[in-house]
């Protein structure tokens, strides 16, 4: 649990680089950003698929084409991971005959696709979204329920313990899941 002093540090500047090149970087706490949630799209069944509508809060930050390119690519990765082809059938049969020992040494198609997704999101974030003030979180962090997009330039004023929100602060600082009802 971070102490109260750490809580109040929302942005810290880090001097990066040597000599004359003095580039500044920021460390941002995503918990303090406002979020846009992209929900799962169940209209075609239970396979992992996210809504492709352009969220209205992103209109002034990135263009529709960029967003659609990203979300369609994410959906495509999951579609490939959930497909049935010779690889997955071979994987299953090999698993059966080796008493699932093959799982210990080989990576399944889904695991490979998740690595691809992670790499894709990292690249997209670095090249496009961070510049636009956005950060796309890996949906695996939220149990593949939602894609969480943080709006980096909406960092809220750090919550002060002395104001009326002290109850909310206590709730936030609790370890995840310790509070069952709100």
């Amino acid at each position, binding site marked *: 649990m971070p102490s109260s002093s750490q809580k109040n540090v929302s942005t810290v500047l880090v001097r990066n680089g040597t000599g004359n090149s003095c580039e500044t970087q920021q460390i941002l706490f995503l918990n303090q950003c406002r979020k846009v949630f992209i929900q799962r799209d169940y*209209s075609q069944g239970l396979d992992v698929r996210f809504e492709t509508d352009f969220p209205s809060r992103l209109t002034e930050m990135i263009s529709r084409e960029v967003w659609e390119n990203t979300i369609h690519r994410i959906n495509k990765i999951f579609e490939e991971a959930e497909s049935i082809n010779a690889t997955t059938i071979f994987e299953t049969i090999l698993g059966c005959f080796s*008493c699932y020992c093959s799982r210990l040494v080989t990576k399944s198609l889904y695991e490979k696709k998740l690595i691809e997704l992670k790499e894709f999101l990292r690249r997209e974030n670095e090249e496009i979204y961070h510049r636009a003030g956005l950060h796309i979180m890996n949906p695996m962090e939220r149990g593949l329920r939602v894609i969480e997009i943080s709006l980096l330039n909406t960092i809220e004023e750090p919550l002060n313990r002395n104001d009326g929100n002290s109850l909310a602060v206590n709730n936030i600082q609790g370890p995840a899941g310790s509070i069952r009802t*709100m």
Partner: protein
Amino acid sequence: MDASKWKLLPQNEVDARSEDIEEDDEETDFQCAMVETQTTIPQEQPIKPKKVRKWTVHPGRNRFCCQGKLVCSKKHGAFLLTVFIMSTTMTLFFVFDAPFLWSKNPSIPIIAALLSIFVIANFIVTSFTDPGILPRAGNFEIIEMDKQLAATQPEQVANRPRTKEIEINGEKMRVKYCTSCRMFRPPRASHCAVCDNCVLMFDHHCPWVGNCIGLRNYAYFYRFVVSLSILIVYLFTSSIVHICLSANGRPFMEVVRDYPMSVVVAVVCFFSIWSLIGLTFFHSYLLFTNQTTNEDLKGTFRKKNRNAENLVKNPFSRGYLKNMCHRMFKSTFPSVLDADGFVNDNITVIVPKTFEKQTGQDSNIQQLDPTFA
């Protein structure tokens, strides 16, 4: 508040007080304010996350082994009974029946051994695989969702909808809000009362394997049930064959006295055959019609309920063969619980400072970093 009073305190006492405050959140505002004056040292290092594995803070009633790689339910009475019955029956067969059958035809016990290994492997994998537990929504996500709801539909904040209607392949289905996990359950997911978790594509909680059966371990479970019924039929006939061939026309009671263990194997198999074959046919039916035990028990897609308001025909079914393939031959869904991963509540990103800040943070930054020009 009078700060001068505090400055007179010896340093060690102030430290002791600040430690108290870190441990106990219910200190008075006065003391909290004083601690902040103590700790306005600029922190240039990112907070190092403590390495805590996710299973240690998991709120459900689960047991974890091997740093969270193995997941099962906390209740394991029936599981131990299954292990006991399975192991004794197999041991008795291989000790008392197999040598006789080997002398007749070595392939008979070899097939039994291979089948047994397959059964045990599927049993272990079913029992210790994460069935598809959905991790609960974090506090920050809930607070953010509340804020968005308050901004868009303020009238719903106090009395939030408990169900949501969604459309799947043209059929309307209702998804419920789970108050324990604090999220709308995905379709076909259900909250297991035994393990206190939402499980994706929840089939049932199986006490005999000591785990929920869900999206991730249904295929293993189905293979386990099918192979176990084949094995039991096989053991039953083998032990009967052993008894009959050894009888040689002697009276029945005499044979029983000579081969008591073969009789035990035959009796155990005889009594478990019926329930297991029934279970095999039931799950084959579910597999080919793409239903779960949970939906079958509730009658979600039952024909006579179809005209009722919120009950529909199964929107997930795509034809018998495709249903079977989709549940048996898909690449295993990843464990979204990620029990052996590390907790990371305070996710940070490092970005180049290129975008404009909306709020007046600059003064804050200058205060924290004195070298900032």
